[in-house]
């Protein structure tokens, strides 16, 4: 394992952990597709932030693009509640439009924006070791991506720790939460804001599609492995890291997209859980049913 390998896998693992943690909340709130929508919809935000600030400075990107994530959430709510459009169509119309705008912007400003269409879909994590932070004195701090994704993970961990009670309640019993005076709306937007920030931070390394796979896959796998929410969070992160490592080596072996490979591995791990999970796996349910019928 070379330094390059470690750097790339670390970046992927950091992204995977952030996504897995948030994903647990998303799938339990039945907001998986809203997460998918946000990960697509932040594209125009990234492009505009880039055009406006003229650089790939992550802070401006995070800010500007993060706002688009909030806008997406707002638009979906607006179409559903005010225009009375059904939920699935609200999500579909909003994110496809925003993503289309993003792609057009990239095409129009291809010269000025250091992004290309294919790259936004699946990123180019292989370049992570090349984009280093070099201080004016000449000291090399390491890949920028690791710092950015690491920072985001720290923020997410802080968010989940500080807001655990509220997030937990609004996920499992919104009515009770409201009765206690917790604003379900506020925490919904905060959660979606966190998803936006994570998506934006991960864009460069893994692209839009992998973010979705990492948001949903590990969390879904963990959901099949345990009934305890805190355990689920830890397991999801673990599955995410595992998928990143295995996926990287598969991509290396096949000489293909690392992001694609990691997404594929999340699917494989999920499939394994579907069949072989101790409590909820199909194989064990079947054998237990046979044993019980005797």
């Amino acid at each position, binding site marked *: 394992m070379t330094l390059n390998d470690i750097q790339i896998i670390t970046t992927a693992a950091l992204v995977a952990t952030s996504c897995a943690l948030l994903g647990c909340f998303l*799938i339990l709130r*039945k*907001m*998986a*597709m809203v*997460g*998918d929508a946000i990960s*697509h919809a932040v594209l125009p935000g990234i492009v505009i932030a880039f055009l406006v600030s003229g650089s790939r400075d992550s802070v401006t990107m995070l800010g500007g693009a993060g706002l688009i994530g909030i806008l997406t959430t707002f638009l979906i709510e607006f*179409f559903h509640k*005010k*225009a*009375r*459009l*059904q939920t*699935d*169509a609200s*999500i*579909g*119309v909003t994110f*496809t*439009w925003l*993503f*289309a*705008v993003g*792609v*057009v912007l990239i*095409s129009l400003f291809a010269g000025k924006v250091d992004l290309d*269409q*294919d790259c936004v*879909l*699946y990123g180019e994590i292989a370049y992570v070791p090349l984009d280093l932070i070099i201080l004016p004195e000449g000291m090399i701090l390491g890949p920028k991506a690791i710092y950015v994704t690491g920072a985001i993970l720290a923020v997410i961990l802080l968010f989940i720790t500080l807001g655990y009670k509220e997030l937990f309640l609004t996920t499992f019993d919104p009515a009770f939460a409201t009765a206690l005076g917790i604003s379900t709306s506020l925490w919904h937007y905060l959660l979606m804001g966190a998803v936006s920030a994570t998506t934006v931070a991960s864009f460069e390394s893994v692209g839009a*599609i*992998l973010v*979705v*796979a990492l*948001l*949903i*896959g590990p969390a*879904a796998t963990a*959901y*099949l492995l345990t009934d305890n929410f805190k355990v689920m969070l830890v397991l999801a992160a673990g599955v995410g890291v595992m998928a990143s490592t295995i996926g990287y080596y598969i*991509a290396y072996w*096949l*000489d*293909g*997209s690392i*992001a*694609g*490979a*990691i*997404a*594929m591995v*999340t*699917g494989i791990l*999920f499939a394994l859980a*579907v069949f072989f999970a101790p409590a*909820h796996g*199909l194989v064990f349910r079947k054998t237990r049913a046979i044993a019980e019928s005797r």
Partner: protein
Amino acid sequence: MNPLIQFFSFQDPNIRFVAIGAVLLTASSAIVGSFTFLNKKSLIGDAIAHAVLPGICLGFLLSGTKNPVFLISGAFVTGWLSLVAVEFIVSRTRIKEDTAIGLVLSVFFGIGILMLTVIQKSGNAAQSGLDNFLFGKAAALVGEDLMVFGTVAVILLVTVYLLFKEFTLLAFDKDYARAIGLPVRWISVTLTSLIVLAVVIGIQAVGVVLMAAILITPAAAARFWTDRIRVMIMLACIFGAVSGLSGAYISFVAPAMPTGPWIVIVISTIAFVSFFFAPRRGVVSRFIRQRTIRRTIHNENILKALYHLGENDKNFLAPRTPDEILSKRSLDRDHLNRVLYRLKRQGYVELSKSRWQLTDNGKTRAQRVVKIHRLWELYLTTQLNIAPDHVHDDADTIEHLLTPELEAELEKVLDYPREDPHRAEIPYP
């Protein structure tokens, strides 16, 4: 020659092909998408669209060429597979549908991207243009490709036409369809196959990522203009066709631009306009209607207040000060003034020396509202046995809504009573 004229005169056969192709693809997707919309399963289209990518790559890998038949077949297989996977996950595990769709979507697409990148690096010259499937390229729709895709589109349209009643019934009342003996499973399977087919050919124009848009958005837009299925599907088809044509035009004018996003922008614009400005269901129309109702209610409440003041001293047309009106019904002073001036404009009140008085029209209108209020209170207490102190608020709402026909009905049922539960006189004109 001006590109707009050059394009729309359709003199160049290439332009004709591309235009026809794009229109066929988007229109057939829009029609099929209408049924997924009615079934409230719009995002399934998104899942299928992402899932066909590995199939396309597989078709390429197995045949070594970009022969559309292979690509379509491969796409069809994985498209169908993705739906089977979603069904399986939802029915056999505790994973919910949205999670299943998102998972299948991203995993299949990831596999597709992996395969695509491996193919791209393999150096096989035939693979160039395979990535057009990601964002679409209507300009690539020429010659034989068009024939194949065009045929599929026509098959789609014909099947929808033949099975229209069955698809509609299944969307609205599956149990009834089962009860009358329709082969529900087979019809569902057919519809699903049509959706997968539509996706497979549609991605030529808009690409994988945005395919969901031309399934969902035309139907969503059309929904706002009508309550009738046939009209809705017709409109969806037209909207889809318009966006497809625009996409083809843009592909002509700017060959380097991907067509998909432009098609989506056009159809989304149509959709937003529909959401806001469609009569009756649009946001703006709804807002105006609600505002009109609110104003009518306020108008009638103030007229009622003036009438009540008149009942006290038996002079309905006497001039009153705003304070007197406020004693009967409390509201913001500014608001009261706005309502009074509005009533004046409509001829229900007159203003003289800072005092307001009912006109004859005003008195008649107020009297009717009061009458309905008291009749309703009587109805609630005598026919529904509700306590007299519980009926006022209900009557306060209903008094603005009852039609003359219902009013007559009410009078008859109660046998033209003289007094309401609170011993107030019921005024007849």
